[in-house]
């Protein structure tokens, strides 16, 4: 998209960059000699799994190394300045004014105690680039360009008073405050819903184009990077795998690793149909209403889940997906309606359910970090449900734990005595699955189980869940906002919006038009691998509608 720009000069030139991290009382190299060249106005996409060193390289481009990291070799040349040898005080002047950084979570990066505009104008005033009122005026203009609602007023709110997508755009505006030459975007849309993601992407792309700013765009989502970047660099464990222009990379990846990244979204399994006749659904949610205090969050939600089937519940955050799960598990007793388990009504609160009722429905959580007690051994985490429900102990218990570890494809002897913090994200999620399986349930709620994981790891988890479903004939309720996941694993889809079920039906039917308007919005917002996807979509929707779509 920026290929038509006039002759570009080199802005950032990184040669043989090596970065070391401190762990276990010694320095270990985590980035092994990366070369990187960035011209003015160019957007470079850095992609790779977590731990590939993307963020570390992004920060190094500002001459910065995180605590416990150090730049141990190579050179970073920014517009003729060698950053590795520049004193800290000069680097500070450079950061914020000429190089800006947009972090993954805007909510965590804004100071909640100050108004947005005060934080926005801090850098220009600090560097004496403009006066307070001018800076404020400029901020409003930037807000307008980024299509924030009420650009003259929104800056005077506190960060918690605006939505996540708006905050992320405000942060992009803040990065532009000093008109930097280089902006580093570190996964700016990963924490957002698909519908909000689009507006942020469009805003970032526009502003980068308008001011001819160079950018490094860090992400693990290929479809996103395809929209944003001119060139893409693929990283693996601190090494460069390959670099090519976006079009070439998408059409003709050379290395096997890149191809495997591209292939992730291809996992698909045939859709199953509801068992015929008078089969009783495993779980039947019937007309439930629920409220937190006086705020009503669910209204008349009903759907059925049959044995051996996967029902995906999709919707934006705040649409009531997880609340429905809380109602089913009994953590939040519904105010109206009932939940049937194999035809029998479940007591509304988990406290009144029998041990066997509790055993039948298990849950796998989104964040494996908080779902596993960090101070308890793996053997105990998995063994406890087995002992609690089936009364196993001694050798029988150990055999059962080994069996479960085998089931989730982890070597029992290696993991038996370890603690959760010693495992990787994907392994933790597997332990979470094993804990659910240990109870021998018939029904499992998977709450965004893959959204915190890299695509390759996520695919492994999906395949595992699929295999377990076939072997153990489990029913899944799959809560997600990622439609690619839905496409690959679901049999039936329930679309929720603002606490109501908008549409539901078998997957194939749901992915065929005609859709409900909201389903259509969700579906069309999922990024595709086509580099022109965003442009086409924006044209179709009309630029002015983007903001509105996100306000839904």
């Amino acid at each position, binding site marked *: 998209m920026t290929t038509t720009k006039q002759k570009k000069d080199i802005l950032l030139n990184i040669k043989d960059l090596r970065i070391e991290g401190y762990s276990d009382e010694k320095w270990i190299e985590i980035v092994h000699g990366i070369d990187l060249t960035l011209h003015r106005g160019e957007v470079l996409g850095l992609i790779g799994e977590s731990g590939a060193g993307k963020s570390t390289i992004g920060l190094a481009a500002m001459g910065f190394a995180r*605590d416990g990291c150090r730049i141990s070799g190579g050179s970073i040349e920014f517009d003729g300045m060698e950053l590795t040898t520049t004193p800290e005080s000069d680097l500070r002047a450079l950061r914020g004014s000429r190089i800006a950084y947009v972090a993954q979570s805007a909510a965590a990066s804004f100071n909640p105690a100050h108004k947005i505009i005060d934080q926005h104008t801090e850098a220009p005033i600090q560097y004496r680039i403009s006066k307070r009122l001018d800076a404020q005026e400029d901020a409003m203009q930037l807000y307008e360009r980024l299509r924030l609602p009420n650009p003259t007023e929104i800056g005077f709110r506190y960060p918690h008073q605006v939505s996540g997508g708006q905050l992320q755009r405000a942060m992009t505006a803040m990065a532009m405050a000093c008109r930097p030459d280089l902006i580093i975007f570190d996964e700016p849309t990963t924490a957002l819903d698909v519908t909000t993601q689009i507006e942020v992407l469009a805003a970032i792309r526009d502003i980068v184009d308008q001011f001819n700013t160079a950018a490094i765009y860090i992400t693990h989502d290929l479809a996103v990077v395809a929209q944003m970047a001119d060139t893409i660099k693929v990283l693996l464990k601190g090494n460069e795998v390959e670099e090519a222009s976006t079009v070439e990379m998408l059409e003709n990846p050379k290395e096997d690793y890149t191809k495997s990244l591209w292939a992730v979204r291809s996992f698909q399994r045939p859709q199953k149909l509801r068992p015929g006749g008078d089969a009783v659904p495993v779980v039947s949610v019937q007309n439930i209403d629920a409220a937190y205090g006086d705020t009503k969050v669910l209204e008349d939600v009903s759907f059925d889940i049959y044995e051996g089937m996967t029902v995906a519940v999709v919707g934006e955050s705040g649409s009531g997906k997880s609340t429905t799960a809380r109602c089913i*598990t*009994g*953590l939040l007793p519904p105010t109206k309606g009932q939940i049937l388990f194999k035809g029998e009504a479940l007591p509304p609160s*988990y406290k009144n*359910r029998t*041990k066997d009722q*509790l055993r039948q429905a*298990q*849950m796998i*959580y989104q*964040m494996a970090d*908080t*779902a*596993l*007690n*960090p*101070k*308890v051994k793996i053997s105990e985490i998995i063994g*406890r*449900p087995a002992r*609690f*429900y089936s009364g196993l102990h001694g050798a029988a218990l150990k055999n059962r734990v080994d069996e479960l570890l085998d089931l989730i494809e982890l070597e029992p002897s290696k993991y038996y005595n370890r603690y959760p913090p010693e495992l990787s994200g994907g392994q933790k999620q597997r332990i979470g699955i094993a*804990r659910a399986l240990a*109870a021998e349930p018939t029904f499992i709620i998977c709450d965004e189980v893959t959204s915190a994981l890299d695509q390759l790891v996520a695919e492994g988890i999906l395949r595992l869940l699929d295999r377990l479903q076939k072997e153990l004939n489990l029913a899944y309720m799959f809560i997600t906002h990622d439609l690619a996941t839905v496409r690959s694993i679901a049999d039936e889809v329930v679309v929720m919006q603002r606490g109501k079920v908008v549409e539901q039906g078998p997957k194939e039917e749901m992915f065929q038009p005609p859709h409900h308007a909201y389903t259509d919005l969700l579906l069309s917002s999922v990024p595709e691998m086509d580099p022109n996807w965003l442009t086409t979509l924006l044209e179709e929707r009309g630029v002015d509608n983007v903001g509105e779509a996100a306000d839904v």
Partner: protein
Amino acid sequence: MSYFVVGYYALLIGLSCLAAYYKQRTPFMLLFSLTLASFIMGIIGGVSALWTVTLAAGALALAAGTSYAFREFLVIILPRETAKEIKTAPLTASFGMFVIFTYAIAGIFAPIIAPHGESQVIASAFAPPDETMLLGADQLGRDMFSRIIFGARNSVGLALIATLLAFFMGAIGGLFAATKGGWFDQLLGRIADVIMSVPSLIFALLILSIFGTNLAVIVVVVAVIYSPRVFRLSRAVAGNVVVMDYIEAAKLRGEGTWYLIRREILPNSTAPLIAEFGLEFCFVFLLIAGLSFLGLGIQPPTADWGSMVRENATLISFGDMTPLIPAAAIALLTVSVNFVVDWMLYRSSGLKE
């Protein structure tokens, strides 16, 4: 000019030069500023001032050496996992551990170590130190050193029991309050508020004058006074753990409250609780010493550091430092415990760098 002064400056300058040659900036700055400061001190205070500096440096070096050696000793005798932790301890922490260890030995083996009984009159009142009495005699002619040793057992032992009780009540209450929530939480919280709203020393004086001053009453009163602080801390810490998904998972499994506290919450809140235990111990210790000083704590003739300060207080006006010895014993223990606690806090929390 005495050889001592010549040697003193020669050593300092020599060491500064060595530090500078090996590019050790911080030691060099330290040594050389000490040299310059010594010029001034030498001019004002004469040789005796330099002697004081030398002795202070010597004492510091001795303490550092002891701490280092003690740490190495611990690393060797302890099992591997613990040894790895100890290895990272700063010298202050190992100094603290050494002092606590010494006090423990003194307290446990008091009858063997002490040359005389704790209430045995062996000399005239306020007799100065001699071969049989390391630190002289107190106002009744009892051996000061023996009483210090026995005091370690009585004062520290009492403080330890009181702290343990306070901790037991506070932590159990706090953990239950956080897990149960609702009216139970409210009830305990308000009780804690009531106790905390009364100034602790006045509360202790009041109760002790009602029930009389025996050991059991002291322990219970002190424990009641300090348990609300433990209650609040453990409730806050547990409050952060209770919202985790793994607690939800355990609840959904149908686990009881006691299991949740014991197996899920407690392992995740031990670090701040242990640190709090150290701090709490210091406060309890000081409160008991204060009560003794006021005559309401441990009753004579039992040796106790707080009351020893009071009994010998008259000596201070004669320029004798005997009453300061038990006070120093209290101070040293408090500082040492805090050293260890600091290190534990550093390890357990985000205080790194």
